[in-house]
């Protein structure tokens, strides 16, 4: 017999699984939504672009995930079926609020019974359509879903949230936001613990005519260049501060994101 207390722990353990995964962020701006995922490369043998962490749920809906990738893939199928059934029954695009509630209800169901385990992934859903404009929702393993202007999931989510809060996203366009998203991912990436990573960027908005797709290569390259420039400035400052501290015989570990000045 599993006690109710233990079932709740299972949900918390699931959320810990998410926190061990690399970061994914989603930000909503005035004319669209941009996703950025820090995809850690665990082996040099991986083909570039494999193990995608951003999925297409419907033409106008995208999903960025963090946590157990297998769980996330299965949930993306659930989301796709929901969106497809809605369109089949009611004749138009599924509103994102409704989709995220339906998928959240599904995730929640797995927290109710001892015969199954909760899903070990969180995900961010984003969409753009003519009537509702840009929308962003996040679902976590407990089965809760909230709407956001910007949110982050994964190991550096606190740091990423701090960065996101600095942005004036309501006044930005997708093109401007792409660069900022790349910058945030580069900032929160821990060079010490995790070496190589691939930046996965996708967007949906007026700029893509309401279609969710990966950001085109040239724009992504430009965004990464901008991000690298910003973080190099940061690392220089990081270098200076660590030297100063060591001279004073105090050992402290400074993470790059605490030193952000731009």
């Amino acid at each position: 017999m599993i006690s109710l207390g233990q079932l709740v722990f299972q949900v918390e353990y699931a959320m810990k699984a998410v926190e061990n995964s690399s970061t994914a962020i989603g930000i909503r701006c005035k004319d669209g939504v941009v996703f950025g995922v820090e995809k850690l490369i665990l082996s040099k043998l991986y083909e570039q672009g494999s193990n995608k962490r951003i999925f297409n749920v419907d033409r106008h809906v995208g999903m960025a995930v963090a946590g157990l990738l297998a769980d996330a893939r299965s949930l993306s199928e659930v989301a796709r079926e929901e969106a497809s059934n809605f369109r089949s029954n009611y004749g138009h695009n599924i509103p994102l609020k409704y989709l995220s509630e339906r998928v959240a209800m599904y995730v929640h169901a797995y927290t109710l019974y001892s015969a199954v385990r909760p899903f070990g992934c969180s995900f961010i859903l984003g969409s753009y359509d003519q009537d509702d404009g840009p929308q962003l929702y996040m679902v976590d393993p407990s089965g809760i879903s909230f709407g956001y202007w910007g949110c982050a999931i994964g190991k550096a989510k606190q740091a990423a949230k701090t960065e996101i809060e600095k942005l004036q996203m309501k006044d930005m366009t997708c093109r401007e936001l792409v660069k900022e998203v790349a910058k945030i991912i580069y900032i929160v990436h821990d060079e010490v613990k995790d070496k190589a990573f691939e930046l996965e960027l996708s967007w949906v908005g007026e700029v893509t005519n309401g279609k969710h797709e990966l950001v085109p290569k040239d724009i992504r390259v430009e965004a990464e260049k901008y991000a690298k420039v910003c973080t190099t400035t940061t690392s220089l400052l990081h270098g200076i501060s660590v030297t100063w501290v060591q001279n004073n015989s105090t050992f402290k570990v400074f993470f790059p994101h605490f030193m952000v000045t731009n």
Partner: protein
Amino acid sequence: MLTLYNPICSLYNPIYYTTIMAVEYDGGVVIGADSRTTTGAYIANRVTDKLTPIHDRIFCCRSGSAADTQAIADVVTYQLGFHSIELDEAPLVQTAANLFKASCYRYREELMAGIIVAGWDKRRGGQVYTVPVGGMLVRQPVSVGGSGSTYIYGYMDSNYKPNMTKDQCLRLVSGALSLAMERDGSSGGVVRLAAISETGVDRQVILGNQLPKWSTA
């Protein structure tokens, strides 16, 4: 439109061999219907209300078998009400029309129902969708249906212009319906009108002696 003889349905079932019409204008729709229900040659109800509310701002005009259309309308009212609560917002006219189509197409062999769905929603304003016998769905700015509709296609084609006002639409619909009722034996009684817009539904009845007169006699 309803000239097919349906071997399944007995002529003594109550039928709306009717005239129904719906017109879009900027800000809403105007719908209208006659009020005759027949069982064979007997007029079972001469003051029928064929304009049925499906939701606060969505109506349907029913023609064909009375029982079939009432049953479908009840089903769609339930489905749409549930959907609207789930979504936590007013449903789209397009959704209602798709629900009608789903029922009318799936059971097309058993049903005889020609329905016009019309209403207002905040995303696309006034809309008219027609779901004739067989279960097709198409959006039109103006739509006529029922046995009496054949007599007023010419009137409609020559008198309908896009971007009319609500009052012009009301006059167009009442004029067209009274013409059809004059010529079609299966349509008659009073003209029931409804104007649906953001502010609400405004229903009217035009009695027989107040109808616009077309014949000189």
